[in-house]
C-alpha cells in the first residue's frame, strides 16, 4: 500500500468542560478510503473541522503530505488540496449549477488573489468546459441552468461533491455524504465515490450507514466519546466486541 499521507497526532479538543476529542491519533494511507464511524456525539465532525481549519485543536497537530495544517487559514488548507463535503450542503443557493461549479474552479486558480476583473466570464471556456464535465460526472449536467436552491437534498449533496472535485483535491473529507438520502440515491452516490476512488485521491469519510461504509472503505476507525476505540480493515472492525459495545451501549 501507499505511504501515510494524513497524520493526526495527539489531537485534544474540548468545548468548555466537555471533551470532544481526547488524544486522537489517526494515520491515513495515500489513495485509500478511510471511514470514521461512531455513535452520535462521538466527535466525528469535530475531527473533520480540526482538519480543515474551522476549529483549532487545543493540543496536537494535523499534517498532510508534509505540511502542517494546524493554525493555517481555511483557504490556505484548501489551496494545499484538502476539500470537504459538509453535512448540510454548503452551496451557492441563488446561483445556477454551472456557476456553482465554476466558482470553485476559479478560486482554485486565482484564490491567492489575482485581479481578474478585466477578463470576461464568457471567455473562460476552459473553466466552463471543466465545470460541465464535472457536472456530467455527478449526473447533474442536464440541470446546469437550474438554480441550486431548488435542488433536492440528494442533488445538493452531489452538487457539493462536484464543487469539491473540480478543485482536484488530494484529500477529500466527506461528512455523511448519504445522510437523508433514499436507498436509490445512496447507491448512486456510492457508485460515484467508487468512480472517483480510481483517481488516486485520499478520502476520509464519516458515515452512519454501514452499507456505505462496507461498500467503500479500505480502513475503518471507530470513534466513541472522543477516542479511537478500534481500527483496521472493515471485516475485523465489524467483529470487534468493543465496537458492538459502543454502538449498542453495552446491552449485550
Amino acid at each position, binding site marked *: 500500500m501507499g505511504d501515510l499521507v494524513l497524520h493526526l497526532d495527539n489531537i485534544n479538543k474540548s468545548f468548555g468542560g466537555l471533551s470532544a476529542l481526547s488524544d486522537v491519533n489517526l494515520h491515513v494511507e495515500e489513495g485509500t478510503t478511510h471511514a470514521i464511524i461512531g455513535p452520535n456525539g462521538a466527535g466525528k465532525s469535530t475531527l473533520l473541522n480540526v482538519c480543515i481549519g474551522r476549529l483549532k485543536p487545543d493540543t496536537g497537530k494535523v499534517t498532510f503530505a508534509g505540511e502542517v495544517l494546524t493554525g493555517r487559514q481555511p483557504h490556505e488548507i484548501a489551496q494545499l488540496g484538502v476539500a470537504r463535503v459538509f453535512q448540510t450542503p454548503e452551496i451557492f443557493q441563488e*446561483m445556477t449549477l454551472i456557476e456553482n461549479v465554476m*466558482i470553485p474552479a476559479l478560486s482554485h486558480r486565482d484564490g491567492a*488573489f489575482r*485581479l481578474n*476583473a478585466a*477578463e*470576461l466570464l464568457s471567455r473562460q471556456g476552459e473553466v466552463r468546459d471543466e465545470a460541465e464535465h464535472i457536472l456530467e460526472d455527478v449526473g447533474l449536467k442536464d440541470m446546469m441552468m437550474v438554480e441550486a436552491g431548488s435542488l433536492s437534498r440528494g442533488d445538493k449533496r452531489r452538487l457539493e461533491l462536484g464543487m469539491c472535485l473540480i478543485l482536484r483535491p488530494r484529500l477529500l473529507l466527506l461528512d455523511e455524504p448519504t445522510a437523508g438520502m433514499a436507498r436509490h440515491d445512496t447507491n448512486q452516490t456510492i457508485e460515484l465515490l467508487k468512480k472517483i476512488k480510481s483517481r488516486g485521491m485520499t478520502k476520509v469519510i464519516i458515515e452512519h450507514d454501514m452499507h456505505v461504509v462496507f461498500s467503500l472503505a479500505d480502513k475503518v476507525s471507530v470513534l466513541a466519546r472522543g477516542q479511537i476505540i478500534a481500527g483496521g480493515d472493515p471485516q475485523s472492525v465489524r467483529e470487534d466486541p468493543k465496537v458492538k459495545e459502543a454502538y449498542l451501549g453495552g446491552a449485550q
Partner: protein
Amino acid sequence: MTNTKKPLLNDTFVVIIFAAAILAMPIWLDPIGGNYPDLLQKFAIYGIFAIGFNILFGLTGYLSFGHAAFLGVGSYAAVWSFKLLTMNVLPAVIFGVVFAGILAAIIGFLSLRRTGIYFSILTLAFAQMSYNLAYSVLTPITNGETGLQLARSDPRILDSLFSDGSVGAGLPSTDLFGETMSGYPGFYFCAVLLIICFYISMRIFRSPFGLMLKGIKSNQNRMRYTGLNTRPYMLTAFIISGMYAGLAGSLLAVTDPLAGAERMQWTASGEVVLMTILGGAGTLVGPMLGAGLIKYFENIFSSFDDNVLTQAFSFLPDSVVDFVVPVVGLFVGSGWHLTLGLLFMIIVIFLPGGLVEGFRRIFNYFRSGGKTKPQSVEAHNQAGE
C-alpha cells in the same frame, strides 16, 4: 437544452442604449420638467455614486454606511486641485479618485475584518469621524463650516504658467481645455464619465472577479473552503467602490467648485443606500434609476407649492380643490420626503428587487400573454426542456 444562457440583450447593445438614453436626457426629460443643467448634472453624478456603491453592496452584500466620506474626500481633493494647480477639471477628477481610493483602502482594511451589521457600523463610524474631523481638527484643509471655496488669490500654479498672469474679474470657472464646465457642457462631461463608469461596472459584473464576489455574498464559508482568500477580493471591491464615490464627489466640485463637510454626513451615505435599493441592488441599471428617481423627487416634487397644485386641479370644482390641495400638498413641496418614504416602503415590501424587478415582472407579464407565472418555476421549466 441549450448550453449557453442567452441574455436578453447583448452587452455592447446595453451600453449603446444606456449611452443614448443618458446623452439624450435633455430631450426626453424636457416634457416632465427635468431638463435643466443643474438637475441633469446631479442625475449623472449620483448615478456614478450609486453604480459604484452597487459594486460593493450589490455584488458582495456588504452594506457600507460610510460612502459619503469618499464623496466628501473627492470634493475636497478636487477643490484643492482647483486652488493649487489649475482650473482644468481633469487633474481635479484624478485627484478626487486617487484620494478617495486611498481613504477607501484604509477604511476598508479596518472595516472588512467584520461582516454584516458590524461592518456597516464600522463604516458609519469612520464616515462620521471624517465628518467631525472636517469640522474640527482638519479646518485648515476643509475650511470648517464655511466650506472650501475658491479665492482670487489662489496660486493655481499650472494656470499661471500658461497665462500672462493677469487675473480676470471675479472667480475663474472650471474648464476642460477652454470649455467651461457649467451648464450643459458640464452635464455632458459628467455623462461621458457616467457611461464609462457604467461600462466598467458591467465588465466587473461579467468577470470572474464579479462572480467570485457574488460567491462571497452567497456563501462566504464555501468560498473559503474552496481556497479563496476573501479579504483581498473584498478590499479591492471596496476600493473600486470608494473610487467611484470619489469621482462623484470631484464632479460635484467640478460643476460647483466648493466643498462642505455636510457632504460627508451620514444622511448622504443613507441616500446612496436608498437609491441602490430603490432601483434594484445587484442589477446593472437599477442604481442609476434609483439615483435618477430620488434626485428628480428632490428637485421637482419639492418645488411644487399650493399655487402649482391649485392650477393642476383647476378642472375640479372649487370645493373639491379646497379639499384636495392641502391633502396633496402634504406629499409635495417640503413634504416630498413623505412621498419618497412611502415609495421606498412600497418597493421594499412588494418589490424587494427594486424598480428593475418591477419592470422585469411587467415584461414577463406581457411576454407570457397576460398569464403570470412564478419566475423560478418558469426558469426551471425552460432549463429542463
